[in-house]
């Protein structure tokens, strides 16, 4: 096994543990904000996992997918934040 191959294996194991812990937090909650934070971190971990896959397979195009995953994570986090803010306002102050 080459040096980079060994590094990829170790890094993938660390990343799997990270995904397990973040997923536990996402299931555990207790509030919607905690779940949203866990979702945000899961997006970043997905970028890292895609990067590892790109190096492992030698496919440069997978880095573009990592960029797309980062974009989706960003839009999702901002969307959830807007939802929480809107749902928390008292009904008479809503303009929608």
């Amino acid at each position, binding site marked *: 096994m*080459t*040096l*980079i191959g*060994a*590094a*990829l294996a*170790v*890094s*993938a*194991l*660390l*990343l799997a*543990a*990270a995904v*397990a*812990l*973040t997923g536990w*937090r996402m299931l555990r*909650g*207790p*509030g*919607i*904000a*905690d779940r*949203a*934070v*866990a979702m*945000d*971190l899961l997006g*970043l*971990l997905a*970028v*890292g996992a895609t*990067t*590892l896959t*790109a*190096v492992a397979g030698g496919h*440069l195009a997978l*880095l*573009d997918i*990592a*960029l797309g995953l*980062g*974009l989706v*994570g*960003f839009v999702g*986090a*901002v969307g*959830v*934040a*807007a939802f*929480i*803010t*809107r*749902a*928390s*306002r*008292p*009904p*008479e102050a809503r303009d929608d």
Partner: protein
Amino acid sequence: MTEILAALLLVLGGAISLIAAIGVARLPDAFLRMHAATKAGVVGAGLMLVGAGFAFGGGDAWLRVGLIVLFLLVTVPISSHALGRAAYIGGAPLWPGSKDALAGVLPRQSIDEDDGLPVPAKQAAAIPAPTIGAMPGAPGRPAQPAGPGEAHGAAP
């Protein structure tokens, strides 16, 4: 040489991602968890990307790596700021050891400690009695539209 550097950066990125996840799992409230998730998460993903840049080694790869790292550095602070603000407004409980520096600056919904459901304090003060459409089984709480309750519908 670049191979050693690439391997080192990939493992370091994985380790820092794991530290971020430990922070998200172990820290006591949503704001501290966000602190761990954003900063350590970006550093972890960024180090793995730079490691991938060394592993590929071409101008193509470095262009993509630079773009993604720049993109993450620009967007993650924005999304974490929006999430933190929303968590505060939505009434996510603060760790007792932290100081509420935003009291009086932002409106904040309070959360009922018993069942974790939100209680709009200002609304309860403005409307003295439960209105006609009050749900049975929820005494003492004014009728609410589905919006605020839904936000915590999945809480155990």
